[in-house]
């Protein structure tokens, strides 16, 4: 049973009305409201009339990002497998969103949480994590997310009291997108030609891509990835590069680098044209979605917008001039 059906079944057992498109009814817990996000057409942003462009608004998950799906799935899978029991502490490397989602799940389920985060992650993400009750261990900013992964793996090895869900290697991550994100899109649309999502762990692209390919065998799965600034690429060597174990690049059809300028143009276009207040990776996803839409004669392009703009307000993406230059030293994804 997928996560969506599971939540629906629990609602019925609790005597509640199944959640309809308008979201009426009640939920026993915030965790039951993860997923079932809206899919909205971006008619003003499609480069041609014959191509329909849609956006899955993952910022409408309870903690504000797509990572609620992953956090809930990883913790519930570990509990079901007997790997996680009350009294254990959670540890996770994250650039922000996964940490915030895990902090919500951990709070409601009673687990203490420590997040390893690059020191140059945005201040809003650190503040939110602390507000939810998580402890933060900072990793060197010049090593980016890869440095956080390395530091968390070392800490987990040294201190066995930690249980590390480890989004980069946990199969529950793509499974959550297979059963949730992908299934919801397949249910909503009769045709999908292109799926575009941001590349971080690869969970969305692998899981939702696999589910949508079952229904639409000719689907193009496209990754939008950030072009990192020099200041966050200071790895000791290229061998230190990190490829998440759950990511199989051979299952991607396109993998497109997006510059800070293009991402910022994307978040501005989402707000200006469609009234969608989205995070910076969504700007990159929109950029790739429009580029691939322009290559089609006709069809349907679905973009997955991972979070809302709230956690990026201090960056001034929407109004500051020359904001791209100040983006170079920060970890955004």
């Amino acid at each position, binding site marked *: 049973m997928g996560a969506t059906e599971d939540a629906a079944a629990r609602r019925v057992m609790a005597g509640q009305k199944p959640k309809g498109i308008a979201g009426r009814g009640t939920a026993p817990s915030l965790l039951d409201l993860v997923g079932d996000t809206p899919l909205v057409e971006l008619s003003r942003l499609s480069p041609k009339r014959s191509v329909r462009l849609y956006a899955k608004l993952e910022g409408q998950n309870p903690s504000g990002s797509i*990572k609620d799906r992953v956090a809930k799935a990883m913790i519930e899978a570990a509990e079901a497998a007997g790997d996680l029991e009350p009294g254990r502490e959670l540890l996770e490397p*994250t*650039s922000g*969103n*996964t940490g915030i989602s895990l902090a919500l799940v951990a709070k409601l389920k009673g687990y203490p949480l420590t997040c390893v985060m690059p020191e140059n992650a945005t201040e809003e993400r650190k503040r939110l994590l602390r507000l939810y009750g998580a402890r933060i261990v900072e990793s060197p900013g010049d090593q*980016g*997310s*890869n440095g956080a*992964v390395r530091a968390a793996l070392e800490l987990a090895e040294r201190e066995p009291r930690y249980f590390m869900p480890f*989004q*980069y290697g946990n199969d529950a991550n793509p499974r959550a997108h297979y059963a949730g994100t992908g299934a919801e899109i397949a249910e909503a649309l009769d045709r999908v030609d292109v799926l575009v999502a*941001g*590349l*971080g*762990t690869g*969970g969305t692209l692998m899981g939702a891509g696999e589910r949508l390919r079952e229904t639409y065998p000719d689907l193009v799965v496209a990754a939008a990835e*950030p*072009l*990192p600034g*020099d200041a966050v*690429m*200071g*790895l*000791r*060597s*290229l*061998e*230190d*590069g*990190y*490829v*998440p174990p759950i990511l199989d*690049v*051979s299952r*991607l*059809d*396109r*993998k*497109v*680098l*997006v510059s800070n300028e293009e991402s910022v143009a994307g978040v501005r276009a989402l707000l200006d044209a469609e009234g969608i207040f989205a995070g910076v*990776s969504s700007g990159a996803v929109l950029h790739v979605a429009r580029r691939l839409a322009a290559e089609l004669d006709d069809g349907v392009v679905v973009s997955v917008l991972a979070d809302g703009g709230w956690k990026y307000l201090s960056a001034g993406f929407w109004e500051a001039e020359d904001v791209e230059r100040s983006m170079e030293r920060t*970890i955004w*994804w």
Partner: protein
Amino acid sequence: MTTVRIPPTLRPETGGAREVPAQGETVGELLDDLMSRFPSLTGKLEYANVYVDGEDVRTLDGHETQVRNGATVILLPAMAGG
């Protein structure tokens, strides 16, 4: 002639240059040209993700990917997010 953008970790091998020109009709030829002029790059490029005009060559034709005159080629370490 193609411009290749060099990541910070490889700049000691290119005398500190952020970008270097290289010749070749395919990605493979281009990387061979780079290694012939900067021999200490040999053995280090295999870990790089190679992008031609912003697309990862692994989703194109790999080292056989054609490189048009004036294209931008970017070498990057593999980086995660989340």
